[in-house]
Structure formats: C-alpha cells, structure tokens
C-alpha cells in the first residue's frame, strides 16, 4: 500500500475526529480504526503501537476528566470534559493505527527533499516508543532469568537502567551510522518509489469524501456533531454521518498488505 494513501487516510480520520465530540461518532471512529488495524497491521514491534496509543488515549481521557474536579463539579462540566477527552483519545487511537499499518520511514521517504531532515527526526522519535516497549519486555525477562523480579518502585533501576542506557547507546550508534552512510550530504536519489494500487486510490478517495462531509457538516452546524452539555442532553447521531465514517473502514476490506507493500 502506498504510504501516501495511509497518510491521507490518517489525516482524514483525524480531521473527522477533530470536528466532533459526539460519543456515537467517536465510538464509530474507534471501531473503524481497530478494524483497519486488525486487518492491515504489519507484524513486528510497530504493531504494538496500536495498544500503546489506545492506552495513552484512555489515560488522556481520564486525566482530562479528572481536571474538572479542580473547579466547579457538576454533571454538565464532567460530561463536557469527558467528551473532550474522548476526542483526544480517539485521535490517539487513529494515530496508533497509522503507526501499526505503515512504516513511518516509508512516509519519511515521501517528504520533499527540504523537509527530509525534520521528517526523519519525526520518524525516529515515533519509533522510540515501540522499541522501548520491546526493550522493557526483553530486560524484564533477562532479569527474571537471573532471579530478579522487576515490579514496583524498588526494583525500577534493574529495569530502567538497562533500558535507558541501551536506548542511549543505540541512539548514538544510529546517529553515527547515519552520518557514516552519508546522511545530510545534500544529494539524494530515490530507490523504488512506491506505486499506487487501485485499492490505495479507492481508500484515499473514500477518506477524502468522509473528511469533506464532516467539514461541511461542521461549517453548516448540522448532524449534531457537538451534543449539548449545558444543559446536558442525550447525544444523537445521524445515520448518514455514521455511514460516512464507515468509508474510513475501506482499507480494512482491501487485501492484506504484503510485507513488501
């Protein structure tokens, strides 16, 4: 699958999420993201990023809601904060899916030459989370085989020190390797640019349509995108808009990506 198709898909799903705080629409987006993740994830450490970002989403939502308790607490403000939090959480889930279904470095290669540096920095930063998680698992098991349990605060150094130091060493090796292999010489050519498949075109168009419909709904104030919380009312959802969100599920029914997508 062309990485640009995924970039468009994620951007559109993000835009749709951004226009609404309606729990039905948000739930639908989460369901669609999960469906796409389940169908298209690339096996390997990056596949974990869906779970990581889903958990981060839940935490974000909880924190956002908890903040209300520092001010006036009533049902309306709690509901408002929870929905705002849910929107952020949904954005994170979409982002997690994007990470799990595409190679972030493939996306970097799309960046125009002058944006190559920041794009690469971004991709490296993105890959840190799943790599660290894999490393945590590895260190925990290694310590266990030596007879050390790593749970709780007192044993944190046994886990954190090897993870952080190895992470640091790896980062330095990577920086050296990039330099030694000519990174930043200013000339670049491109190896086997990705090609567009029919499926990729279809999913791109569907994603753009979904985003467009929600943008129109947002500008014209239709579709109950933001359920009222002052006064608190039961949210509503338009079947047409729910069906529009379903357009984002198209990548989930396309043939599974081969590793060499």
């Amino acid at each position, binding site marked *: 699958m062309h990485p640009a198709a995924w970039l468009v898909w994620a951007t559109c799903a993000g835009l749709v999420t951004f226009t609404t705080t309606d729990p039905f629409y948000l739930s639908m987006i989460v369901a669609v993201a999960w469906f796409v993740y389940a169908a298209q994830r690339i096996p390997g450490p*990056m596949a974990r990023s869906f779970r990581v970002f889903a958990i981060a989403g839940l935490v974000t939502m909880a924190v956002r809601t908890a903040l209300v308790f520092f001010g006036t607490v009533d049902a309306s403000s709690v509901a408002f904060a929870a929905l705002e939090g849910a929107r952020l959480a949904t954005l994170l889930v979409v982002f997690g899916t994007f990470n799990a279904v595409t190679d972030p470095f493939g996306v970097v290669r799309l960046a125009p030459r002058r944006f190559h540096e920041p794009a690469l920095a971004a991709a490296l930063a993105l890959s840190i989370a799943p790599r660290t998680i894999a490393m945590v698992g590895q260190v925990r098991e290694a310590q266990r085989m030596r*007879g050390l349990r790593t749970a709780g605060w007192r044993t944190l150094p046994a886990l954190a020190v090897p993870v952080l*130091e*190895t992470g640091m060493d790896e980062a330095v090796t990577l*920086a050296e390797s990039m330099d030694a292999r*000519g990174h930043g010489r200013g*000339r670049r050519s491109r*190896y*086997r640019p990705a090609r567009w498949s029919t499926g990729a075109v279809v999913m791109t168009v569907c994603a753009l349509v979904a985003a467009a419909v929600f943008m129109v709904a947002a500008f014209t104030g239709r579709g109950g995108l933001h359920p009222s919380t002052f006064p608190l009312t039961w949210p509503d959802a338009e079947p047409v808009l729910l069906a529009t969100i379903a357009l984002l599920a198209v990548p989930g029914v396309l043939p599974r990506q081969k*590793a060499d997508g």
Partner: protein
Amino acid sequence: MSDHALRFEDVRFRYPDTSRDALTEVTLDIDEGTFALAVGPTGAGKSTLLRASNGLVPHFTGGTFRGRVTVDGRDTLEFPPRKLADAVAFVPQDPGASFVLDRVEDELAYGMENLGVDPAHMRRRVEETLDLLDIEPLRARSVRTLSGGERQRVAIAAALAAGPRILVLDEPTSQLDPQGAEHAVAALQRLVHDQGITVLLAEHRLERVAGFVDLALGFSDGHVEVGPPAEVIRRLAMGPPVARLGRLAGWDPVPLTVREARRMGAALIGDAGPPRVQVATPGPALVELRGVEVRHGDVPALRDIALTIGRGEIVAVMGRNGAGKTTLLRAIAGVHEPFRGRVTVDGHIPQPGVDTGMCPQEPESILFAETVADEVRTTLKARGLGTGPEPVLEALGIEDLAGRHPRDLSAGQRLLVATAAVAAGLAPAILLDEPTRGLDPDAKDRLVRYLRRHAADGGVAMLATHDVELAAAVATRVVMLAGGEVIADGDPGVVLGDSTVFAPQMTRAFGPGWLTPEQVAEALA
C-alpha cells in the same frame, strides 16, 4: 586517488575523561586491495582504530587527537564521516542499532540514496548485493524482525551496496553460524580479489579469517604493529587453534590455516589414532525434556525434543542461525512454557533464577548497578544468600574488576560480569546464550574455567554457540539442532567430527577425534 587506501601518521588519541591513550603513536599504511585483520585483546584499541578510519573518531567521540589519518587521500579531520561515505563504509559491532530504515531492501539502498546514485544503477546494485550476501529471501522483511545472524549479513550488505573502496568491519561474524561466516568472509575476499576493494576487519575468532588475510595489525595497549599475519599472530601469542598447536609444538613459522597445519603435523602424528575419549559418566539427571514442542505464536520453533542432561555435563547447543537454540535455552530456563510436553529441572518445573540461571545474548540487558560487586550483590540479595560477591567473582577470574562500573568495561569483560551476576544465584543449571561478542581468548579462558568448575561441582552448563572451537574446548556433549529438531546428540568428537561445517580445526587437520591443540600436542610429544 592515492596508492594508500588508508594511512595513519603518528596518530595518538585519548577519549575524553580518560587518563590513558587509546591509540599511541600509530603509524601504518594499508595499500589498496589489501585484506587486513585487526587482532588483539579487547580494550587494546581495535575498535578505536576502526572508527578512526572513517572519522567517527574523533568527530563523534571528542577527545584529544594528534597526528593524521588519510582515507583515499582525504584527511579525516577536515572531512567528517558523511563526506567520506563514498570512500569508506563502516559496519559497527552491534549491527542492529545501525539500521536506519525499516525494510531490508531500503536499508541496502539508503547509502546510495544519500550519495545520489542514479535509480537504475541503484536497483541493479541492490540485487547484486542481495545475492552476494545470500539474503535475497530477506529483502522485504523488517530489519527489526531479523535474527542476530541475519542482521549481521544485512549490515554488511548495506555497507557494501554503497560501493565504497574501503570496507571496515568490527567483528562482522560474531553472530554468524560457521557456514554463514564462511560465506561472509569468502564474499569479502572476492571483493578484495575481483574489485580491488580494501577490507579492514577486527575479529577474535581468527580461525574464521586468519587464512584469508594479507596483512595483520597486532594491537596491545594502544600500540599497533603491522606485518604478515603469521608473524604478528605469533608475536601476540594469540591465534586460531592451529597457531596454538604450532606454538605448543614449537613449529616455526606457526601455521595459520588447516592446510598448513596438516602439512606440518601429519607426518609427525603418523598413524597414531586419535586419543580414546574418556567419556565421563554423567551424574544423576538434572534437566529433562519429554516430547517438548515450543511455539512462537502458532509457529512451532521446537518439535518433539527429548533430552536428559545429567549433573556434571557441559552441553554445547549448536546449529545454524534460526535453528531454535535460544528457544531451547529459554524453555529450559522456564520463561517459555512448552506448548506440548514437559520440561523439568531437578524433578520439577523450573523456576527461573532458582533452578536455572540464564545469561542473555546481550549482557547489557541485565547490568544496572554502579559497580561489578554491587551487580553480584543484587542477585545474592534477591536469592536471600548471605555470602559476599568475592567467591563468584573469583570463579570467573574477575575479582580485579569488583570496583569498576560495568558499563565502562569491554564487551568480553561485561559478558563475564553478567555471567557472574547470573552464577551468583547458585542455580544448578547455568545457561549461556551465544557468549561470543567481544570474547577475546583471555575472557574465553576464564569462561571455560568457570564452566568446568560449575560442572565439577555437580551443576549443568549449557551454551548455545556458533563457536565450534569453544565447543570443542569445553563441551562434554554436543546437541545439534536443525529446524527445531535435534539431529545429533552425543560426544563432541563424534558429533563435530562427523560434520563438514561444524568440525573444529584439529578435526579438519588430523581427522575425527582430534578436538583441541592440547590433545594433538600431547600426542606429538
């Protein structure tokens, strides 16, 4: 272009915050089309010199640098590593950390993309390099899912693909099985012969390379002497088993290859058959596996394994990359539950750290304390043992490192420290997963002594290894795996002697049954 591919002129280098020169007055020339080997104990300056040859030292390390290094006529002080990328490629010791992109194929193209190589040419070179290193089937894989050996081959390929005139490699075969190592070294030799490329590599397992190289750089304490391999290796008192035999038997020059050793020794040995192997009867069973199947997800990694290992045995688990060696150790350690069958240690399901202690492939992943002694104390405390760290440090011959910070040590020393940290728990079954990277002869000797002592005290030691010479020297039994099944199991003389790939040098030179230079020297005496 100059005749000298690589030239060091009176180079002196000291890392920041250290009180000792890592390189001292190094002067050397390596001509184009030379296959050069850097040899010497760990910490003697090999990696520093390798990294100085493309400017990583001092551009990435800082420190005090004097003298001049020129690569292809360019001064490394004026040209940072990226400006030398078209001339020299470098493969670091830990190839996994050097990958920039995700897919193998893209990783191979990365260097060429940076150099602005024309796409059609790039495509062709990627295909050629995939074939040269025998990694075509890996082309679409994510580099993060590769095994250690696969990573190493991909890293070499990625360096080569960029088309450098000089290729610098730091222990490029440390994680390769014997066959893979032979392929990789043969590929390097072909580059030297056919394309006039200059190759400089550091390697501890000299039996894999000594016969191929034209020039040796012998390191001791930052000093470098350059000369023909036989001379340098003789003076350093290191070398492959055949060289060790030559020294023991007083031959001059010492042989470097199996062929030379055979010529010099065959007549002397004559018809004296190999020594009768004293098969020690193993003690009562400690580790038992019955019909064990282990899976990774849905994929079986080990099938129908039945093994009984008695107290006092030292078992080398061998087999090509991906044969299931690590998985077998993890199953015995008690961290990977079998899908079918039963693993027991001392009659019950093994409890990691208590019944078994395993030293991981990356010793760094368990080291966290401020000092070596504290590292050992942590294990003792976790196991509720009242003893001090001294006995176990002594058992591994590292009592002098007690006060050092584990991260400041060389790779070989770190492995010994990690083994001490594992051994301190007094588990009867000690498991080592590929104790190879950075393991110089001195560290190897200490490890061997510890393993023998542990077995003599009634324990079991198992090591997954590609190092046939280590297996020949220490193992009392060899278990050979292929595709997740045991294909041979028995006395090292028989199992290794029977194999063309896994035969140690003494077997190759003098026939099955001969395993170590000491054995042969004794027969000659």
